[in-house]
Each structure stands twice: as C-alpha cells, then as structure tokens.
C-alpha cells in the first residue's frame, strides 16, 4: 500500500509519538482560570508577518480557536496520537486481543533475538525501497524533462495521461492486474518473452525475481507521482537562466548539469523522501502478488506486522516490530533533513 498522496517531511526530529500527551493536555485549556492567566501574560504578540497584533479578548479568542479546532484535535488524538502511543504501550504486553493483555516487561523486546524472519524482512524492505526509489528518481526526472521539452502538444498529453493513469488506480486493482500479466504459463508477458526466444523466469514465484518483479509493478504504478513532482519543479525554473546560459555558450549537458539539476533539487528531495517512506511501507503488492513468498523472499515489514498481528495474534511482539519500523522512518527523515541543508538549493525570491 502506498500513501503517496499525502506525505511531506516535518521538521526533522519532531516525532509524533513523544508529544501526543501534550496535545491532549492542551485540548482542555478552555477553562476560565487558565485563560485569564494567559491574557495577563502579554499584551501584544508579533504576527508571522512581523506586524504587532492586539491581543484583546485572549480568552474568547482561545475558546473560539479550540472550538474550531476541536473536530481536528479529537480525530487527531483518537486516530493518530493514541495509536502511536499505543505501539509503545502494547510492546510491553502479551495480547491476542481476545483474552486480557498481561504485562511481560521487556519480553517482547528480547524475542527479537530469536526472530529468524525479521532480518530477512528488513533487508527485503530496504532492498525494495532502494531499488524502486532510485528508478523513480531517474525515470521520473527523465520523463518529466522529456515531456517539458517535446514540442508536440498531442505527444505531451499522451505521455502525461499514460504515465499518471496507473497512479490513479487502486493498489488492489494494480496488484490483481499484474498477477495475471506476470503469471508463468498463462500470462501475456511470458508468452511474448518466450516468443522472442527468451527463457523468462516465473516472475512472482521465483526466489531471485520476485522482489524485482514487485519493483517493476511499483514503478509502473507509482511513477506518475514522482513524474508530477518533477514536472511541477521544471515549470518553476525561470527561462532566463537557460537563455543566459545559452548566450554564454553552455551546451545542453552543461545546462542540465548546472541549471536543471540544482533547480530541481527541492523536487528531487521531496520525491526521494516520499518515495522512500511510501516504498518502505509497501503492502499490497507482496500481499496479493506473492503473499510474501516464495518463502519469505518478498515479505516486507508491513506485511510481516500484518501477518503476525492478524493471523498469529501476536499483538505485543508486533508492536516491537512496529517500533523498529517507526525508528527506521524517523532516522531516515532526520538524515534526509541534514542532507537537505547541504544539497538542496532553494531559490531566494
């Protein structure tokens, strides 16, 4: 399952799990005593635009603010805050969701040492993520540049529609479709490859080819997202830069190297960050197309969590694996944030 539609990077280090109780506490500051104290605390406040704003009626203002915010806040607490904290809480218990949970201390954490599948699962996820993100960046950028450069409107429209369409299809639909296409003896892919005199593997059931097969499916299905990010990035590059470079005698490659690539760095950053996070949480292709197999060759972290929780009812241990998952994502975000400072070029307007 990819959640491409809705991700960005929060400031590095701001991790939701640790701060959720604060949201809950401040959710109830509508009380008069608090509000009165607040009003006394300062008469003016500098607005984001640097213009001082009067802060009269602070209490009524806060009340109105929390009233308007209450639906979002309640939903946030119930469906984002509590579940994230819940991972930590559940990691200390043994629980099958039917009989009451009982506390096992660090037992679930110790069990990691005896888990033979976890290592392979993590390396599957990581390998899949690196392969698919790299292909997304190269292919997405190349196709976006090609579409921006080509003069024919019909070709532009055709390419754009074709590349983005798969991204608009349900992951379930995509997975089912490819299970027919990549089927060993009955699928059209292998029929044509055999016709060409090749000896194609049994894609989804092969120990070597199953993970790359999922990469192919993933690229086909979600390249549209990366492509759009680069397309929008390219549109924001001022024409004068290319004109000036051409006048100075810069060739096409130099223009790409010195203008396009640096100016696209914010888009590249977003595409790799969302790509990594989305790919790491891949679920639907391994579930439907390979069922994690053969063996555990395509078992990804989310599929592992899903199976352990909803097929083996090991909720406590699953929570530990979920924490590992969160830790990997958070450290990735932190590293990306640090890298971005160095490599990402933001145009100052």
């Amino acid at each position, binding site marked *: 399952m990819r959640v491409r539609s809705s*991700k960005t990077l929060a400031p590095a280090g701001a991790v*939701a799990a640790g701060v959720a109780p604060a949201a809950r506490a401040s959710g109830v500051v509508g009380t008069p005593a608090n509000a009165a104290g607040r009003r006394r605390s300062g008469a003016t406040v500098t607005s984001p635009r640097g213009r001082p704003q009067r802060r009269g009626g602070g209490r009524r203002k806060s009340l109105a603010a929390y009233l308007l915010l209450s639906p979002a806040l309640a939903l946030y607490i119930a469906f984002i805050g509590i579940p994230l904290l*819940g991972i930590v809480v559940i990691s200390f218990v043994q629980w099958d969701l039917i009989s009451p949970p009982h506390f096992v201390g660090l037992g679930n954490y110790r069990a990691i040492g005896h888990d033979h599948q976890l290592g392979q699962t993590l390396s599957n996820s990581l390998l899949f993520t690196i392969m698919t993100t790299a292909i997304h960046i190269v292919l997405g950028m190349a196709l976006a540049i090609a579409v921006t450069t080509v003069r024919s409107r019909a070709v*532009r429209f055709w390419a754009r529609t074709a590349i983005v369409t798969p991204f608009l299809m349900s992951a379930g639909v995509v997975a089912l479709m490819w299970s027919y296409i990549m089927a060993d003896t009955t699928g059209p892919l292998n029929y044509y490859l055999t016709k060409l005199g090749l000896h194609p593997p049994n894609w989804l059931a092969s120990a070597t080819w199953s993970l790359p097969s999922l990469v192919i499916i993933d690229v086909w299905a979600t390249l549209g997202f990366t492509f759009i990010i680069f397309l*929008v990035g390219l549109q924001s590059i001022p024409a004068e830069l290319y004109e000036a470079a051409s006048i100075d005698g810069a060739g096409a490659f130099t223009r790409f190297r010195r203008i396009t690539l640096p100016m696209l760095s914010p888009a590249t950053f*977003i*595409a790799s960050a969302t790509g990594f996070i989305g790919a790491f949480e891949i679920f639907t292709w391994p579930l439907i197309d390979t069922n994690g197999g053969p063996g555990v060759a395509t078992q990804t972290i989310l599929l592992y*969590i899903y199976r352990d929780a909803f097929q083996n009812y090991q909720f406590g241990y699953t929570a530990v694996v*979920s924490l590992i998952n969160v830790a990997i994502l958070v450290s990735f975000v932190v590293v990306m944030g640090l890298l971005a400072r160095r490599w990402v070029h933001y145009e100052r307007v």
Partner: protein
Amino acid sequence: MSQSQVLHPAIRRRRRFEPSQWVLSIILVIAGIAFLIPVAWVVLQSFETPNEQTSVAPIWIPTQVTLHSYQTLFHSSPFLLNIINSVVVTVAVVVGAAIVSVLAAYVFARIEFRGREILFTLFLAALTLPSQVSAVPSFVVVKYLHLLNTQAALIIPALIQVVGVFMLRQHFRTIPTDLDDAARIDGAGHLTIIRRIMVPLSWPAISAVMVITGQYIWNDFFWPNLYINSTSRMTAPLALYNLESVAGGGPIGAVFAGLSVLCVPCVIGFIFLQRRLMEGIGFRGISR
C-alpha cells in the same frame, strides 16, 4: 535519454525540424504505450468470451464483443453495492475532511492562542509517518469504538487529513488579513469569515485537497482490507480481491470486468481533474 534536450520554450521556438524532437516524441509515445498497455489488455479481455480469455496466446481484439463477463460479475457478486460503498465512503471523507481541514487550517493561520505552536508542530509531525505504521493500535481503537466491519471505520479515522490542514493553512496565510479585519468591523464572526472570505478565495486549494483525498480514499486497499470482512460492506477494490481469491481462478472474466470498471474512471478522471491533481501533488515539490 532525454537529458540533452533541456531547452526552454523561449529558446526552442527558434529552431525548426529538429530530428531530436522526433526522437523524443517517439520515445514518449512508446513510454506511454508501455504504461497503458496492461490497462488496455485487461479492458479488451473483459469483452471476450471465456474461451478467448483463457487462451494461451493472448487475444487482443475480441472476435465478438460480449458482455458475458460483466453479467457474471454483477450477478454473482454484490459488485454494484461495493461500488456504491466506495462512492459513499469517498464522498463522506472528501466532504468531511475538507470541513475539518478548513476549520483547523483557519485556526492555525489566523487565530493567536496559547498552545498554537506546539499543536501545529504535532500536526506537522504526523505528516512524517504514514498511518499504516500504527495499524495494530488503530485496529484496537476501532475495535473498542465498535466500528469494526462498518463503513464508519473507513470514514471517521480518515476525516483527519493532516496534509490538507497543512496545505490549506499555507494557502490561508497568503490571503491579506485586511479582508478579515474589514469583515470583523462589519460584525462578522469566525464562521462568516471562513465561509465568505477564506473558502471562496482558496477554492482552488480546497478542491486540490479534495481531489488528492478522494483519489487516496477511493483507491485505498490497506484499511478496508483490515477493517471490513463481510462482502456486502466491502469497497470495490477489496471486493474484487475477495472475488479473485475466493473463486481461486474461477470466473477470471468477472475479475477482468471488475478491473475494467475500476480502471476506466481513473483515465477519465485524470483527464478532467489533472490540473487539481497536479496542484495537489506539486504543492509538495515547490513549497518550502
């Protein structure tokens, strides 16, 4: 491949009859075919007879167009109901999440109050982690709210779309505060300001949020798969997966028909909604 072609329209216009343009066009046409051919194959298969569908050599053009697969699909499974479920869930989430997001975004953009910074940081932090990472505790929450196996389980948790809150807040901040001030002098409250100023002036941004939310919910597989287990309550993609796995390779045609039914709106939808969609996604790439 195409990187040698980085030219801007302003420069491009000077030259004519470039062979590189031809090469580029051919590459893009082929790339487009590569992306659409699996969809075309499935759609064409859905109009074939069962014999043609199972033939080893792929038959692209049905010798006689038959709706047999569609009849099987709609008679042997409640697929129409599943489509209605998908529509209901998507519409409810798109409308509900837009309202929740507009209200929250307005507060974060316009009202100074104690706790604003920390709350906004919390909302931002949630953008980093996909909701799937906490699937297990979410399941527990939904179970204890007695929402398992109901459409509400798909709607209510999805009403909070942090990215929508964030996008709209950014957009509201670009609207001059003088407008609110003027309205306030005329006696307008927050809700009036939201309805009469914020929403009309940021309609493009709101509709972009609605399109990306709708696209995500309509296509979601993860949460319906987790929460719904009775066939009649499933959303369409899940129902199709269910049909395929229960049938175990039986009515392959019905699955093709279902896939086609779900694919075609995507192509048509893209043609109509592409600007909003690109704004919604492109927002990521250019902001910050």
